[in-house]
């Protein structure tokens, strides 16, 4: 089971600011272990955020996004109490979705 994302969504003046902290090793595939063998790449490569089921952001990532990825973005048209959901998928088919209410 993966660790939950921390999502904070705050609406002010019609604009909702979403800040997400994901828990993921984001292994680049370039590092080598103690035995010299490369550690296989394992990183989030797709992110999707929705507001009440409607897409508000999509992202494709490479291995260069930092470990425990941080993401912040802003969108209009939401109200306090609405739900924002964030889903990530990684290069091994792992996936996780978390959601939060807009405050």
């Amino acid at each position, binding site marked *: 089971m993966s660790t939950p994302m921390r999502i904070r969504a705050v609406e002010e003046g019609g*604009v909702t600011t979403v800040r997400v902290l994901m828990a993921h090793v984001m292994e*680049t595939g370039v590092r080598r272990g103690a035995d010299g063998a490369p550690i296989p790449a394992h990183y989030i490569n797709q992110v999707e955020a929705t507001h009440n089921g409607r897409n508000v952001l999509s992202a*494709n990532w*490479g291995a*260069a*996004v930092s470990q425990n*990825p941080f993401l912040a973005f802003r969108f*209009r048209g939401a109200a306090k109490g609405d739900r924002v959901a964030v889903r990530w998928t990684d290069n091994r088919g792992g996936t996780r979705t978390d959601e939060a209410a807009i405050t």
Partner: protein
Amino acid sequence: MNANRRTVIKTSGAMATLVALGIVTAQQAHAAGRPGFEARSLQDALRAVGGTPAATDQIRIVSPDIAENGAVVPVGVSSTLPNTTELFILVERNPVPLAAAFTIPRGTEPDIQTRVRMGESSNIVAVARSDGRLFSAVKETKVTLGGCGG
């Protein structure tokens, strides 16, 4: 949702098989359906994204002038160009320059913050697609300790 899981797992499995057979390199497998993520030079990445962007001062890059830790460099990219539908973050001197590509639907501000790894001091290149055309801005961030490990 279950169909998506099965599709992702099937696709990953198919690609994994191709990688195991040596038909597709691991790099290509990572990049399947994702233009630019297999490119190992800035020029190739830009070509994959759609061509040579025009320089603009309407894209703002917020990043440290000097980053102590190249593994975690905060980068913010925002565009005031009309109808910005995509934002790209590239680190010119990384082994794979394209770090992130964002699709901005209507109603979302073209204003993204994230954190990237930088292997060494490098230009950060931000590209925006505005009304279908590509524009870019550049900012140099120096790195004290490179962030790719290995």
